[in-house]
């Protein structure tokens, strides 16, 4: 009894101390500014405690967990097909991309391979999720910098892609479409042609954003040279995705991992390019994402042209039992590398699922990156790092 109460007391003291450390104004001339948990720049409930000297940031401390939903633990009490419903909600703007690595990990453990058509449709939906996700970023970056209009165009044009996702899967935001061994359904009739029109809209949108935002002098003045991440620093903080490609690191899991190379997704049969930018600043991150949306449009175009026939589902037992073992599968999600480490003990449910989400790792650089910047640049940097709260707090 005493041990428990003592431990509780210690925990209480530790919590108090942590709170005090965060809340107290450390220096007499400095100021502590809480950005969040309720703040428009944090897309949700991220809290960043800034130590300010005037408007200069002398310390930044991101505090996560305000939206922690415990998906890793919840996944342990759900069967494998049920887990996709949960993990849909991790990066809610590109939901389908969340399902794929988990399903691929389960397939790897069960030694099932999806038929070619399923792989291709998966890749199409994966890239559509990327377009839907990053399109919103392209407009939202404008809002963070004070240009209100682009985000409305982003919402408008993302709708074309969401409509296609809805037509194919039945869910606009949370498709829950990927199955172990294939897909739930085949594509509906006329989907290929309508998707091509939607892609044209997105290409127009990209051109529009290039004109409205990239070509704007104020945007350049606000982003060039702001939040520069050198390649080695970025890699050592575990950054991934466009954030690290904007620093000149030519690394893309779609090309550089066996998963992208035909084992789960059909990137190996496409003619595409990994975009990088040498600068590593906020502008580079925006530019790289813009190019990636265009590249994704081209990839989907190629995939639609070369879609193979055949079944969309492999032979899978009615009750899915995953044999004992463990697997780690990571894919190049819209936000960066997303991986699932699945440990199975041969039951209906996974024994342990560790989710490596991109935004969580991307956030880890903020204390280093925000030091020495000014308050307006904090917003630019946070916007250009592009995180989604659900992807930070799983």
């Amino acid at each position, binding site marked *: 009894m005493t041990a428990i109460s003592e431990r509780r007391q210690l925990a209480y003291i530790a919590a108090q101390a942590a709170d005090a450390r965060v809340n107290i104004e450390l220096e007499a001339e400095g*100021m502590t*500014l*809480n950005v969040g948990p309720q*703040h*428009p*720049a944090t897309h949700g409930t991220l809290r960043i405690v800034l130590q300010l000297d005037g*408007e200069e940031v002398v310390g930044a401390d991101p505090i996560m967990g305000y939206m922690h939903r415990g998906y890793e633990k919840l996944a342990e009490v759900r069967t494998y097909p049920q887990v996709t419903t949960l993990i849909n909600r991790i990066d809610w703007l590109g939901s389908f991309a969340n399902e794929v690595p988990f399903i691929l990990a389960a397939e790897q453990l069960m030694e099932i391979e999806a038929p070619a058509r399923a792989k291709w449709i998966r890749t199409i939906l994966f890239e559509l999720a990327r377009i839907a996700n990053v399109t919103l970023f392209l407009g939202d970056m*404008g*809002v*963070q*910098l*004070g*240009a*209100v*209009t682009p985000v*409305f*165009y982003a919402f*408008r044009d993302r709708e074309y892609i969401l409509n296609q996702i809805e037509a194919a899967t039945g869910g606009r935001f949370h498709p829950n479409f990927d199955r172990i061994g294939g897909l739930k359904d085949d594509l509906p009739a006329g989907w290929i042609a309508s998707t091509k029109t939607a892609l044209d809209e997105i290409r127009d949108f990209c051109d529009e954003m290039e004109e*409205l*935002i990239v070509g*704007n002098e*104020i*945007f350049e*003045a*606000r982003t060039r040279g702001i939040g520069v991440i050198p390649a080695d620093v970025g890699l050592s903080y575990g950054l991934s995705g466009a954030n690290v490609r904007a620093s000149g690191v030519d690394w893309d899991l779609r090309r550089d991992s066996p998963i992208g190379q035909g084992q789960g997704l059909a990137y190996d049969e496409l003619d595409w390019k990994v975009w990088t930018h040498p600068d590593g600043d906020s502008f580079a991150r925006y530019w790289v994402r813009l190019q990636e949306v265009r590249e994704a449009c081209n990839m989907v175009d190629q995939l639609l042209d070369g879609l193979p026939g055949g079944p969309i589902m492999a032979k899978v037992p009615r009750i899915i039992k995953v044999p004992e073992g463990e697997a780690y599968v990571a894919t190049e999600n819209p936000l960066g590398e997303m991986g699932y480490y699945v440990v199975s003990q041969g039951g209906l449910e996974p024994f342990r699922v560790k989710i490596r989400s991109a935004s969580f790792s991307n956030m880890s650089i903020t204390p280093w990156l925000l030091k020495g910047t*000014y*308050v*307006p*640049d*904090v*917003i630019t940097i946070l916007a250009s790092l592009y995180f989604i709260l659900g992807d930070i707090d799983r």
Partner: protein
Amino acid sequence: MLSLTTSTVAAEFAYWQTSGFKLLMAFVAVLIPAGTTVYLYLFKMVSFMQSRLGPMEAGPYGSLQLLAELGKNAQKEDIVPARADVLVFKLAPYVVLLSTFLLVLVVPWGPDAVFADFDTGIFFALAVSSVSVIGILMAGWASASKYSLLGGLRAAGQLIAYELPLVLAVVGVVIQAGTLNMQGIVAAQIEGEIFGWGAIGNPFILTQIVGFLIFMVAVQAELTQVPFDMPIAESELVSGYMTEYSGFRFLMFFIGEFATANIFAFLAAVLFLGGWGVPPFVADALFADGNYSQWMNVIGPLVMATKMLALTFIIYWVRFTYPRFREDQLQTFAWKYLIPISLVNIAVTGFLKVVL
């Protein structure tokens, strides 16, 4: 030549009657244009620019939306933050609105339709436009919120920096007109001639185009509108000094902001677009009997409103197109570009005034 003699209509009324009428008209002059531009531009035009419809439910095409907003804000609780400096916090919106009402006093709407015809009208206008800085600083300080404080300080720095180009841009006009009196500036433009051709008068936008551009940029900054909206920056300071205000006090800031936009547009119309005057060739065609000045008291406000709508259109167009400058960038822009250019403009204007 047109005569601009003042008539003696006002003398037929008692002093309290004219005062009461002027008070009423001051509210009309502030609130009606503000409501018009807010509905026309902020609600509708911007919605069309952003591929949405804007308010559609309240009245035909949402035209009664403003009343709905008024009712909504009037009903809201008047929250004062726990640690706020209550008196200062409550006074701040009145100070901001005071500057708006003081500004409208010197704007001429017609030969006689003016609240106060000072000899130093434009000087007075530029002076009282700075009163709002005090209100903003009061709001920023008294809110007891860090975001508000940052916003208030930014606003103070910015408004003081852009006061200079605003004044210097006007100096060119004053040199050309040879008077600080607003009516005198209007008269100078109506009666002016471009190398002996007087059909359209001589609106100073032609000769003072540099001054006009600097004036409009500085106005944009004075109004803390995008791209100079660092003090209220919704996405980072969560509306800056207005963060803690709610209900009717927020509404007063809101009215102050948009009414001031209109009055600056009125001022720009007076300074650069010929004020209430219509081009002389139109006036000659309409008023062949020479009874010009009487009718202009009626037509003048409409002419002013037209010019104001054209200018506020630019203000809102820019507002919803550009990203915002960073604080240091907008200071650099004011001190390194706008002020030197306006000084050169003054020098050139003065030189040409002497030579021609």
